[in-house]
């Protein structure tokens, strides 16, 4: 068994506003091992984004504990590239923030970008790129800070279907070949099945883990190939039912 890198222990989080209080998660418990790709699906508004904010340490739980070993990189639904910076400068952003803007770190960030097909776009501005390319640049920016865990909040949902399949393929291969640990939030059941090693199904708000499945695709990690396998539709049916309980 590999090392545990993230652990939620009976995590409860309540939002307080003037109108009242909303419990977003309640006694949420799960863990994530090094090198694992875990997808989290759940009904909309159940507290998925909240879960990621907790994992990133942007919020403290009301009760329970979140333990993380290592750093994390957050990737959001929109690419959030800064339009006044070139792609290259966007990729340096986390280095600047973490005050690690050294020539070596910049070099390895640029190499990462070149390796994954962004060499022609380094001097372009974000609005000049297609949605898929921008999301790829956002992933490289996230990887540039060399995080131990990638937190992905519906990173494909702003893309059209065709682009989505392609970017999904890219992101999967990049994350697998960099051997990163990833926690992916998604609305899309087929996305979860085609990408993850393990799937967590959350309940309606307040979120708890209702079901947990380890997928049996063996060594096959390519989303397109997975979609062709017979298990794919079986898993789809199972998860679909569990989501709609």
């Amino acid at each position, binding site marked *: 068994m590999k090392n545990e890198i993230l652990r939620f222990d009976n995590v409860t989080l309540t939002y307080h506003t003037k109108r009242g209080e909303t419990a977003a998660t309640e006694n949420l418990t799960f863990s994530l091992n090094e090198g694992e790709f875990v997808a989290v699906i759940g009904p909309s508004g159940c507290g998925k984004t909240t879960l990621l904010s907790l994992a990133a340490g942007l919020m403290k739980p009301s009760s329970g504990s979140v333990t993380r070993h290592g750093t994390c990189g957050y990737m959001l639904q929109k690419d*959030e590239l800064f339009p006044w910076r070139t792609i290259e400068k966007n990729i340096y952003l986390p280095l*600047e*923030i*973490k005050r690690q803007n050294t020539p070596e770190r910049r070099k390895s960030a640029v190499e990462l970008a070149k390796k994954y097909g962004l060499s022609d776009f380094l001097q372009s501005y974000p609005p000049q790129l297609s949605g898929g390319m921008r999301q790829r640049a956002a992933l490289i920016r996230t990887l540039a800070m060399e995080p131990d865990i990638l937190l992905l909040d519906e990173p494909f949902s702003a893309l059209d279907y065709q682009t989505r399949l392609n970017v999904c393929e890219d992101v999967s291969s990049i994350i697998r070949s960099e051997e990163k640990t990833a926690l992916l939030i998604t609305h899309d059941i087929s996305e979860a099945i085609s990408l993850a090693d393990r799937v967590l199904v959350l309940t309606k708000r307040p979120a708890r883990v209702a079901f947990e499945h380890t997928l049996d695709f063996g060594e096959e990690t390519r989303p397109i190939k997975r979609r062709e396998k017979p298990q794919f539709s079986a898993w789809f049916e199972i998860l679909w039912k569990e989501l709609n309980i």
Partner: protein
Amino acid sequence: MKKEFSLEHRRYLAKKKQNAALVWALRFGILALLLGIWEAVTAFGWADPFLTSSPSRICKTIMSLYSDGTLFYHIGVTLLETLIGFAIAVVLGCAVALLLWWSETVRKVLEPYIVVLNALPKIALGPLIIIWFGTGSEAIVFMTVLVGIIVATLHMLNAFMATDGGKLLLLRSMGAGKLQILQKLVIPSSLPSFISMLKVNVGMAWIGSIMGEYIVSRAGLGYLIVYGGQVFKLDLVMSATFILCILAAGMYALVVLLEKVIVKNAES
């Protein structure tokens, strides 16, 4: 990089150029027409130049101001007051906006004061300003700052507060502190608003300085206008107003130029 364009594209470009030329021609045409009508109605005696002045009389007045050496003196006084007031209003306004952005508590506490100051007609403070600052240029600069600073503050605060939530979240997830968020995100994303604030404040600065000169002054274009009105020298009033138009337009053009420089820098 030179590129061969298709015939259709070259036609399109030529047409665009033609359109731009036409717009400029019409602009000058309208100006010439208005001046011509003005000159004509006074020359033919349909209107009394004593009440309406006329382009030729304005020219003469400006020439005589020039020859007795006071033209540039008055322009200089007003221009300096306006520019200093403008600069102080912009710098202080941005600084206050930053402070308000930084601290939610300060923002909430000061909100009613800002609302009242914004709504208050600044000219009501005229007598106070005379008593506090005397009748020199200081009083006029103060009035200019007063008129501009609230606009600058509110404009910039709006821009700072409108910073994209997703980008804020992204920076915070990278562990950015408030200063870094300010430096990397809030300030660069507010640059377009800064330019539009400058444009608005050019107008505010002239309102402030001329209003100030109406209340107290011994020199400047506002002084010439008030004096001209009192002694019924409409030529002087019109001349000073005309010069004012040119100066205000020139200052606005400088801001537009600055905008172009900034946009160009941001793109290279």
